């Protein structure tokens, strides 16, 4: 669909907007609907949209597979790492109150980090599934 001018232009307009909106969903999740999972799915949808319009080989150059692999693991590591950090600071596993001087502030910070971890892992997994499925292509040039 690279040859389709209309779709290409709209994709250029839309993908940044989708990504910014995903960030809004991610960081506004404390106040309104949204959170890590939803934001991760939206980011993945933006990149999948890129792959739909420009083709998978191009998207693989923009977001290489090793980056997706690192995202896959690093999100859950951030999550568990916050838990370990709270343990090291002398509280229970995933008890964020010790992350700042004030318990409520620490909770807020912990929730922020944890949601970030969720978002990164979800993006990674969704993208990985798409790459794996769409990459098993019959046409010779889509995977090189």
């Amino acid at each position: 669909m690279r040859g389709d001018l209309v779709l290409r232009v709209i994709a250029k307009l839309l993908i940044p907007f989708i990504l910014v909106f995903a960030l809004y969903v991610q960081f506004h999740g404390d106040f309104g609907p949204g959170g890590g999972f939803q934001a991760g799915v939206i980011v993945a949808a933006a990149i999948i949209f890129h792959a739909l319009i420009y083709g998978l080989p191009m998207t693989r150059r923009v977001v290489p597979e090793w980056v997706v692999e690192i995202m896959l693991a690093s999100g859950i590591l951030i999550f568990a790492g916050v838990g370990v950090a709270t343990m090291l600071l002398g509280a229970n596993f995933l008890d964020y109150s010790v992350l700042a001087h004030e318990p409520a502030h620490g909770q807020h910070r912990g929730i922020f980090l944890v949601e970030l971890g969720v978002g990164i892992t979800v993006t990674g997994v969704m993208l990985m599934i798409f790459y794996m499925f769409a990459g098993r292509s019959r046409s010779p040039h889509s995977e090189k």
Partner: protein
Amino acid sequence: MFEAAAAALLISLAGALARALAGPTVFDRTQAANSSGTIAMLLLAVIGFMTDRPDFLDIAIVYGLLNVVGTIAVLKFFRYGDLGDPGSMPDEPDKQQSGEMK
């Protein structure tokens, strides 16, 4: 008044659903799904106003953004039979010959 708008949108949604069920081609169904996505977006906004909590338009925006991704995915699958295919540039022959480029 928002109730009336919601009722009208529900009836429209039912119409779109009926078209999606009736077909006959897949394009009809896709068109109906796309329209029902639009109607559902509007319905979300109207319900938000009806229950006096219009802050939830975020969901309508998510809908709108992802609806287009889904529709384009279906159409691409139809045209190229493959989701990752880059397709051909305008100066090259249109389709089914993408294996020969490069």
